[in-house]
C-alpha cells in the first residue's frame, strides 16, 4: 500500500497537533440544552421555526421550548390547535418549500392520529420524488414512562418509526448530546424524529435524576447522527442501550465495578436510524457478551434488530446467548408495581449482566 503524503498537513508546529483546549461548557439540564440548541439555530437561520401544541407561552409540556416565544415571537414559535395531522402536515409542506420547521408531537403515543402525514408523506416524499424534493424538518416528541401515566402516555415506540424507511431517528440520553443532536437534526436535509425521554429532561416535577444535568459546549456543537458513544468503557459485558436506560446501565455498571462483579461497557446508541452497527460489533467482539436494554416493546423491535445484525455479521463473536431487557409485550401498566415490572429497571439490567458473567 502506498500513501500519498502530499496532502498531509505538516506535523511540526502544526496547531492541530497541539493539545486542544477543552471547549467552554456550561451546566444545563437536557430540556434547557435542547432549547439552547433550537434558539441558536433560530438565530442563525430565519427558516427555522417551531410549532406544536403548547410550545408558546407554556414552553412545551416537557420544557422543550421554554422561553422561545419571548425570544422569537409568535410568528416563529407557533401554538397550534390540537390537530396533529393538520399541523404536522403543515410542517411538511413548509419544509418542501425550503423552510426548516421543528414540530412537536407532545407525546409520541399520539402518533396514531397523524401517522399518515409522518410515514406516508414526511418520510416518503424525498424518495417518491427521486430526490428532487427535500423535507428538512425535525419532529420532536416526548417518550417514556415511569411516572404512572398509563398505556397511552408512556411508550417509547422508536422501533416503530425506525422500521419505516425515510426518517432518521435520534434518541439522546444526556444534555450535551441532546444539544448536539438537535443542532444536527435541524441542519439535516432529511426529516429527523427527535425522541427525548421525559425522565432525562431534568423536570422539577419528576423524580430527580443526576444524569439529567451536565456540561454542554457553549460554542457551535454538533453530534453526528448515526454515531454511538461509549458511555463507559469496559471489558466483560457490552450493554447496548439508549435514552434513559443509559442512565440505569451506568448506575448498574458503577455498582458492579465497585463490587468487582464485572467491568461493563455501556454503548449509548444516540441514534437508531442510522444504527451504528460497527460500534456494537466492535464492542461485542471484545467482550463476547451482549445485553440489550430497550424501553420499547421487546418483539419485532430494536433489540431483535441488533441481535439480527450480530447474527448476520458473525454469531461466533458471542460467548453466550444475548440477553434482552425490554418491555415485555404488554401495554405500559398504570399501577406502580406493574409499571416497574414492565420497564427495564436497574434491577432487571443488573440481573441480566450478572447472568452473562456468571459461570454457566
Amino acid at each position, binding site marked *: 500500500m502506498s500513501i500519498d503524503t502530499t496532502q498531509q498537513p505538516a506535523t511540526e508546529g502544526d496547531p492541530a497537533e497541539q493539545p486542544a483546549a477543552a471547549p467552554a461548557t456550561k451546566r444545563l439540564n437536557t430540556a434547557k440544552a435542547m432549547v439552547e440548541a433550537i434558539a441558536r439555530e433560530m438565530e442563525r437561520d430565519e427558516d427555522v421555526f417551531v410549532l406544536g401544541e403548547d410550545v408558546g407561552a407554556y414552553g412545551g409540556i416537557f420544557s422543550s421550548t421554554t422561553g422561545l416565544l419571548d425570544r422569537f415571537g409568535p410568528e416563529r414559535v407557533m401554538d*397550534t390547535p390540537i390537530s396533529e395531522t393538520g399541523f404536522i402536515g403543515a410542517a411538511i*409542506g413548509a419544509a418542501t418549500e425550503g423552510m426548516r420547521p421543528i414540530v412537536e408531537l407532545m407525546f409520541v403515543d399520539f402518533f396514531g392520529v397523524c401517522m399518515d402525514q409522518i410515514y406516508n408523506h414526511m418520510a416518503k416524499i424525498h424518495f417518491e420524488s427521486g430526490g428532487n424534493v427535500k423535507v428538512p424538518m425535525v419532529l420532536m416528541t416526548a417518550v417514556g414512562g415511569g411516572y404512572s401515566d398509563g398505556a397511552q402516555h408512556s411508550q417509547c415506540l422508536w422501533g416503530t418509526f425506525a422500521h419505516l424507511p425515510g426518517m432518521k431517528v435520534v434518541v439522546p440520553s444526556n444534555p450535551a448530546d441532546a444539544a448536539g443532536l438537535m443542532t444536527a437534526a435541524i441542519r439535516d436535509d432529511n426529516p429527523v424524529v427527535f425522541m427525548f425521554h421525559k425522565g432525562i429532561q431534568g423536570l422539577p416535577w419528576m423524580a430527580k435524576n443526576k444524569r439529567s444535568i451536565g456540561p454542554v459546549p457553549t460554542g457551535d456543537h454538533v453530534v453526528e447522527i448515526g454515531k454511538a458513544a461509549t458511555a463507559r468503557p469496559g471489558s466483560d459485558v457490552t450493554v447496548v442501550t439508549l435514552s434513559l436506560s443509559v442512565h440505569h446501565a451506568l448506575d448498574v455498571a458503577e455498582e458492579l465495578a465497585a463490587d468487582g462483579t464485572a467491568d461493563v461497557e455501556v454503548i449509548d446508541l444516540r441514534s437508531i436510524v442510522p444504527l451504528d452497527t460497527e460500534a456494537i460489533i466492535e464492542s461485542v467482539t471484545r467482550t463476547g457478551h451482549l445485553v440489550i436494554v430497550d424501553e420499547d416493546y421487546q418483539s419485532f423491535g430494536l433489540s431483535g434488530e441488533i441481535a439480527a445484525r450480530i447474527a448476520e455479521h458473525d454469531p461466533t463473536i458471542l460467548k453466550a446467548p444475548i440477553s434482552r431487557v425490554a418491555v415485555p409485550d404488554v401495554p405500559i401498566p398504570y399501577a406502580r408495581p406493574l409499571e416497574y415490572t414492565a420497564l427495564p429497571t436497574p434491577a432487571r439490567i443488573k440481573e441480566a449482566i450478572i447472568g452473562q458473567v456468571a459461570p454457566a
Partner: protein
Amino acid sequence: MSSRIDAAVQRDLYDQMVLIRTYEEAILREYHADKKPAFDIGAGLIPGEMHLAAGQEPVAAGVCAHLSRGDAVTATHRPHHFAIAHGVDLNRMTAEIFGRVDGLGRGRGGHMHLFDPDAHFSCSGIIAEGYPPAAGQALAFKKRGTDRVAVAVTGEGAANQGAFHETLNLAALWKLPVIFVVEDNDWGISVPRSASTSVANNAERAAAYGIPGVRVEDNAVEAVHEAAREAVERARNGGGPTLIEVHTLRLWGHFEGDAQGYRADLEGVPGKDPIPTYEAALREAGILDDAAVAITRRAASDTVESAIAFAKASPEPDPSTVRDYVFA
C-alpha cells in the same frame, strides 16, 4: 354563457381541457395496449392502478388559469388534469407514469406520486392528506412575505376525512393563502355522495370554519373560472382561504378495470361530457370553428404523443439503484 369572460380566456380554457382529455385518452390507450386479452393490473408498459380524470377537466382548467409559476398545487390520486393545467413538465410526468429514469421521480413515484418542484406541484394517493401540506406551503409563502398561493385538491369523498377538517380549521385560523378545491364527481369509488355525506354539498361546510364556500354546479368551466378568480384574489390579498366545490363528472371508472356495475347513472354519463358541451357553446358564440378546433386538437395530440414517445425512449431504472433516494 357568461359574457364577463373574454374570448381569449374562453379559448384557453377550451384548449386546456382538450389537452387534458387528449392526454388521458393516450394514457388509456397505452395502459390497456398490453393488458389484452386478460387484464392484469401489474402487467404492461404502464403497470399499477390508473385513475384518469376524463370529465373533470373543467375543474383543473378553471382553477389553474389563475395560477402563476411559484403557486403550489397538491392534487390527489387522480392528478393528471391538475398537473397538466399547472404546467408540470409533461415529458417527465409521462416518463414517471411509465416508470422510467427520466420521470419526475426517476421511477420511484408512479402516477399517484408526481412531484415537480419547479411547478410546486405534488400529489398524494391518500385521501385528503394533500390538504395539510398545502396549508404548510401557504404558511411558507406567507412567512416569506410573498403573494403566492396554494391550491389543495380533493374529491367529495375526502370531505369526510379528519385531515380535510383539520386543515380547513388551521388555514382559516392562520388566514393562510389556500384555495381548497373539492371535486364532487358523485362517487367515492362505488359509494354515492348520498350514502357518504351528511350535508347536501360540501361548500356548506366552509361556514363551520368561517370561510367563504362556493358550490359550482353543472361542471361549468367558466363558473369554476369565476369562483377561482375570486378565491385566488382573496388569498393573494391576505383574505385567507376559500372552499370551492365543483359538481363534476367521472366520465370513466374509479380506476381502469373498474366495470362500474354499481353505477346507476352510467347510461347518461357520455351525454354529460363537458368538452363537447363547451365546444358547442364556443362555436355558437363564434369563438370556435372547424379550423380552430382542428388546430387545438392537432396541437394537443402533438404535445401528448411527443411526451409518450419521450417516456418510451427513457430507460427503466437500474435495479442496483433500488436503495437510492431514501435519504438526501
